[in-house]
């Protein structure tokens, strides 16, 4: 069972995000990067499947600040192979470009299953899993929160709104967009990560020049109006209740 997990680092929302001088991109000065939470779940799900069925797990990521630490942590969790995509990512990389770069490399790994987070919060041109699947001409199912394997197929649980789940059969090899691993990503002691830094190796794979075909051009980025403190409603209980009714109607809950 050969499982491949493409992951990426995304802006950490704990820090305040600001727009750069061009007005069309995020300012990278104070930007802190963190693994896309759903990609973290994808790694966990891959390790769970490895523990259940045997096989090997390869984690790949495009080069960016902090990617080595992230890959070593994946190794400490149980990943067998670590790959970093290096190249000129200066112009920004959208998911179409990343998908094409990954497809060229992943094809040769001959994976049975590709798991990746169903989306990342900074996606603007679709999620990497859906695009990669089509570049590899594999089937894709997203919003997956449970995976079991049978001969030549995966049986997955796909989440719909309201708690409804569909159990689907997907022919392998396939790409799954993970919404949640069957258990939350396990904790890895720092000492284990430090050990992985000494024993594990990260392979580098050079990526050819990327073009951004497939996405849209962003002409402007901005922050939505932020209300500093709550708008306070005053008056007697009756008056306040009336104002609330008005707000409920605006929200569409009434």
């Amino acid at each position: 069972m050969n499982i491949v997990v493409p992951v990426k680092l995304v802006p950490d929302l704990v820090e305040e995000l600001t727009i750069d001088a061009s007005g069309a991109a995020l300012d990278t000065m104070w930007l802190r990067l963190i693994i896309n939470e759903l990609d973290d779940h994808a790694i966990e799900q891959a390790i769970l499947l490895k523990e259940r069925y045997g096989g090997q797990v390869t984690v790949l990521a495009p080069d960016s600040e902090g990617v080595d630490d992230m890959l070593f942590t994946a190794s400490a969790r149980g990943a067998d192979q670590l790959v970093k995509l290096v190249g000129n990512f200066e112009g920004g990389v959208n998911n179409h470009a990343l998908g094409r770069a990954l497809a060229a490399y992943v094809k040769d790994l001959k994976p049975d299953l590709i798991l990746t987070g169903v989306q990342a919060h900074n996606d603007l041109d679709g999620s990497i899993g859906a695009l990669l699947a089509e570049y590899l001409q594999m089937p894709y199912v997203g919003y997956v929160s449970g995976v079991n394997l049978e001969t030549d197929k995966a049986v997955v649980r796909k989440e719909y709104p309201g708690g409804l789940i569909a159990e689907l059969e997907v022919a392998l090899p396939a790409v799954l967009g993970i919404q949640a691993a069957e258990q939350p990503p396990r904790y890895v002691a720092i000492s284990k990560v430090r050990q992985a830094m000494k024993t594990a190796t990260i392979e580098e794979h050079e990526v050819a020049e990327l073009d951004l075909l497939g996405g849209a051009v962003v002409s402007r980025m901005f922050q939505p109006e932020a209300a500093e403190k709550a708008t306070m409603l005053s008056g007697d209980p009756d008056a306040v209740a009336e104002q609330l009714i008005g707000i409920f109607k605006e929200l569409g809950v009434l």
Partner: protein
Amino acid sequence: MNQDIFVVVEHLRGALAEISYVMMAAGRDLARTTGGKVYAVLLGQNVQNLADTLAADAVLYLESPSLADFTSDGYCKALSGLIGQHQPRAVLMGHTSVGTDVAGALSVRLGLPLVTSVRHFEGDKFVSQICGGKIMAEGELPAPTALITLVPGGYKPESGQSAQAPLVTPVAVGALEDLRVSVRQYIEPEAGDVDISKEPLLIAVGRGIQNQDNVVLADDLAKALGGVVCASRPVVDQNWLPTTRLVGKSGKAVKPKLYLALGISGAPEHAEAITGSNCIIAVNTDAAAPIFNIAKYGTTTDLFDLVPVLTEKVLQAKGG
């Protein structure tokens, strides 16, 4: 060039999803700029009337037993043929478990540009909402056919509704053989307690509710509004509500459309679990309560005076 807008209708188990109305409203808005017609694209089996309440100029109905259940493979095959033929200006899909299963594949298969998380259009520009809602990204609608996934929030569902059922035109669907994805079964959510993390309307009670008997005030309001009661830690610790209703660091994180916090101070452990809410309204007699820093609206009116009056008015508004 064709300036029509396609709206891919989302439906599940015989029910139209609300996002379909929002998309229709968005499609109508966009059509005002592009000047084309708005088509509801309905795929399925025996669902020809499902789009009757949509404000579309017409419904393109693709019927096939292979489309009886939604699958990424089935919808993608059917839609790529249709889009390839018709070449509309834009195709709107939901940014959902349905729409996102299909949008990426269509983009690659047809070589068409894809923009996701779009909240609304401004003339011929898309405005997308990313980074947890903290950043908006705007750009020109790409040519020749823009594939779009839409998130709710930019349009009212009512703007996509119509009392007049649009004309349904059946469209022949080519062979949908060798689908690689199929449905084995559906699993309904467990009857029993609700999953508050998936609820759109939450009435939350905190220490300020003071005792178990008073929780009924929140219950009544929740029933009137069609929401669910949840709580911060002290309430659950006292067993006034079960742990399944706990919102907070040790409980669930929630992202409802409306979070009405009654008597909750908004300590960090609770606040971090509700920041994903679309709108937080806080009721707390302490004007300095930290919850007012993250709430959109607030009031220091005593909840015991306010809630019964509010419940009454909600029932009146609902015609009850």
